[in-house]
């Protein structure tokens, strides 16, 4: 067994010449953190080597904002050196295995097993087998119980951390909530562990007392005869019955990556990014992030304006993305754009505003955005009819989409991307047909605009995905439709859109959505299945070229209850595998929202009217602000 840094230069060159895109593995990017010369002057017990692992390829991981935030946060501490790891592509993976080389960090070529803490940042359930693969390639025992005192502490966080039960046996601890403070707390505590020569178990006893820290091994789960959860109880006195998520009350006090790593490779989102606010006030009932990141907390205009200046100077990139879950909800967006656009123009920087709500895409904003280099425009109506949009609480009406499209067309956009979801609760054929109807209305609207005021051509890209019920959403009780229904509905959309040369329809293979649904609401019994799937070659499951449904289907079918046990509709009284996790939004609120969905009733956004979801207890963000005036079209379709 060897590591990258111990190979001769000739050997390193030979390996890099055998793989595609060797720059994925060579490191040395601008502003990557190199502490080699200073870090090792510290006493061994006074320094923490943190391995930040992103269980996907370099190009995906380096597009991830959380990586940049947490990398900057950890490396700001002189006692910590955070280095990066990504899953190698299959060609490099094969070389590492063949030559018995441990997965090593980009910064210093140090093998994963030599780190103090290994942190897995997990953004999606389909990364689970890749997590195991990275541990394996890094020569670390997969299961927590098999790791000794000399093995690294393996921790996890990220959007799926609110239910990592299917991965429970593999992690020593899970971080729930905002990572910035959590990671600082954990590294500080781990330093204390090293200084005082504490055992790992004693460290975990202390760690589990911290807000947001969940130690899966400290809880026992029992099951009812029908396979549902009976009890989830702590098995040590130190562990709390309920784990509260960690929340940064004032985002202005949190670190922003002002000098982020600038990748050499053309990564998926090759741009500088600013998170303008965290959380979402909207409450779309299918959206997990919309509930788990509540309350909505904005960064101040001044902070963002300064950050943009620093990003322009320190990265030299030609695109700046203003990120959030719903960018048009930023209270000072217009002022921010007004301040940023002249600077962006001067620096030849394109502003990109993903996650635009189409009810807020108005003339002024279109004109503002159109002045910088124009990127594509994407709207997400999510459902084809008003009835279903009310069920999911999307709070937009057909006229919003028509108007937003007209504004876009009159400002020079000639391509539109529309996102829809299939299989939403209560969906009927009429809702599916509504997608085709809506698209035709949009084309008709384009025709109505006088020739000289509209683009000569107009194309619409329609994309559908399959609804996946997620924990901590009002739809956590909903069923996922069967694969046959998924196929039928995709075909129905395709035929409703017809052979229109202005429309392109894209859909995804639905099998991966089934797996995602199983894992999202899964329990600890799935850990064996995940490990088996990995042993049979499943890795990088989110990549359709690597996804092995045959393996997963066989393994899941062998479980009692099979796939449908996990995709079924859940009764309101059922105990969930994540019931011991408290993410702020109360179960009783989600239940109320589920009932309102079934009645087709909408709920206003937080900044219009408080719905008493439970996150008010944090006394932060939108919960502290006086209500904004309700928009005419905001709600009221009850």
């Amino acid at each position: 067994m060897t590591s990258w840094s111990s190979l001769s230069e000739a050997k390193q060159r030979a390996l890099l010449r055998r793989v595609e895109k060797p720059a994925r593995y060579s490191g040395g990017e601008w502003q990557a953190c190199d502490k080699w010369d200073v870090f090792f002057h510290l006493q061994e017990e006074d320094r923490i080597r943190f391995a930040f692992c992103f269980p996907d390829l370099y190009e995906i991981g380096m597009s991830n904002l959380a990586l940049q935030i947490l990398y900057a946060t950890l490396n700001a501490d002189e006692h910590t050196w955070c280095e990066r790891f990504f899953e190698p592509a299959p060609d490099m993976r094969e070389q590492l295995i063949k030559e018995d080389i441990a997965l090593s960090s980009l910064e210093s070529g140090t093998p994963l097993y030599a780190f103090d803490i290994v942190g897995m940042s997990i953004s999606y359930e389909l990364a689970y087998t890749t997590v195991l693969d990275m541990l394996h390639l890094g020569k670390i025992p997969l299961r927590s119980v098999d790791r000794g005192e000399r093995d690294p502490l393996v921790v996890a966080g990220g959007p799926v951390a609110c239910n990592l039960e299917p991965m429970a046996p593999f992690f020593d601890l899970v971080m729930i909530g905002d990572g910035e403070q959590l990671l600082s707390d954990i590294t500080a505590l781990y330093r204390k562990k090293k200084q005082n020569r504490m055992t790992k178990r004693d460290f975990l006893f202390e760690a589990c007392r911290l807000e947001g820290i969940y130690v899966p091994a400290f809880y026992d789960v029992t099951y009812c005869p029908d396979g549902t959860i009976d009890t989830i109880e702590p098995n040590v006195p130190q562990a709390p019955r309920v784990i509260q998520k960690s929340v940064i009350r004032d985002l202005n006090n949190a670190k922003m990556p002002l000098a982020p790593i600038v990748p050499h490779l053309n990564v998926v989102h090759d741009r500088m990014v600013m998170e303008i606010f965290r959380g979402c006030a909207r409450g779309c009932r299918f959206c997990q992030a919309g509930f788990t990141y509540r309350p909505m907390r904005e960064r101040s205009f001044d902070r963002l304006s300064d950050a943009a200046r620093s990003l322009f100077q320190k990265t030299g990139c030609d695109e700046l993305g203003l990120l959030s879950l719903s960018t048009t909800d930023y209270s000072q967006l217009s002022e921010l754009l007004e301040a940023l656009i002249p600077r962006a123009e001067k620096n030849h920087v394109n502003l990109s505003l993903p996650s635009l709500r189409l009810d807020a895409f108005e003339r002024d904003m279109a004109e503002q955005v159109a002045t910088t280099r124009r990127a594509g425009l994407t709207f997400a109506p999510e459902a084809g009819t008003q009835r279903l949009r009310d069920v999911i609480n999307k709070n937009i009406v057909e006229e919003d989409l028509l108007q937003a499209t007209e504004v876009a067309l009159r400002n020079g956009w000639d391509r539109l991307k529309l996102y829809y979801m299939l299989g939403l609760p209560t969906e009927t054929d009429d809702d599916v047909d509504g997608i085709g109807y809506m698209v035709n209305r949009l084309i008709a609207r384009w025709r109505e605009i006088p020739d000289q005021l509209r683009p000569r051509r107009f194309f619409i890209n329609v994309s559908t995905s399959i609804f996946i019920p997620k924990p901590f959403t009002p739809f956590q009780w909903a069923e996922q439709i069967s694969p046959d229904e998924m196929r039928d509905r995709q075909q129905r959309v395709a035929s409703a859109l017809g052979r229109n040369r202005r429309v392109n329809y894209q859909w995804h293979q639905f099998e991966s959505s089934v797996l995602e649904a199983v894992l999202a609401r899964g329990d600890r019994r799935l850990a064996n299945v995940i490990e088996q799937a990995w042993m049979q070659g499943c890795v990088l499951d989110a990549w359709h070229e690597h996804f092995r449904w045959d393996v997963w289907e066989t393994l899941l079918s062998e479980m009692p209850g099979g796939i449908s046990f996990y995709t079924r509709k859940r009764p309101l009284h059922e105990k969930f595998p994540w019931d011991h996790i408290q993410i702020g939004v109360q179960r009783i609120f989600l239940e109320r929202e589920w009932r309102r969905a079934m009645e087709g009733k909408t709920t206003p956004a937080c900044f219009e009217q408080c719905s008493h979801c439970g996150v008010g207890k944090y006394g932060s963000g939108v919960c502290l602000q006086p209500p904004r005036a309700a928009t005419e079209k905001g709600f009221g379709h009850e």
Partner: protein
Amino acid sequence: MNNTQLNRVLLYYARTGSTAWLAHLDMMRLFSRAMNRAAWPLAWSEGAFNPRPDIVFGLPAGCGIELERDPVEIGLDVSNEALAFDLEDAVRRLNTTLPESVRVVDAAYTEPVGKSLMSRVFAATYRIEALGVSSAYTKTFTGAPVMVEHVRKKKTTTVELTSKIMDADVSDDNTLLIVCGAGSVNHLRIDLLLKALVRDGGLSPEGAAGARLVRESVLINTVSR
């Protein structure tokens, strides 16, 4: 020379270590970003849809090749900043905004000539370091044509190598120095050369894969207006 002429700069740069693994497009992006960071007043191509900074590389560098002195030409927009732009200072700044493994080693103002920088490149010198590489070269290149198959986009063509090599120094068995054709005509691909050395010269495949490849210089034709 008046200020209006001081709007083109010819830089020579070196790259080693991690950046030697960048593809040409990545290298171009790296330079344009480093120049933005160093606040170089780059000239931009006209066009509303996809304007590009005026940065022209003399010769694309293959993945895994280190460079010691490769030319890149930069167009400057000095309309507002003629007095502020001091080349020496700007290069110093640029070297602080480039990754450590890339360095500008020389810079001078240049005048636009009839042909682009790329089309004026005609040769390059390479240093290839591998065990027994010079013996392999002597055995392979005896004066007769050396034919090598080149697969590109699933199409196979046969390329003759001898005529592309102008000079070679084999005095050190583990270091081969060659001068060869480069650019739009008579370009020698170093990977094909290594392929021939393995096939005909007995260089070990592992030795070829692990060889250190360094482009020492790129030769440019000086063309008058």
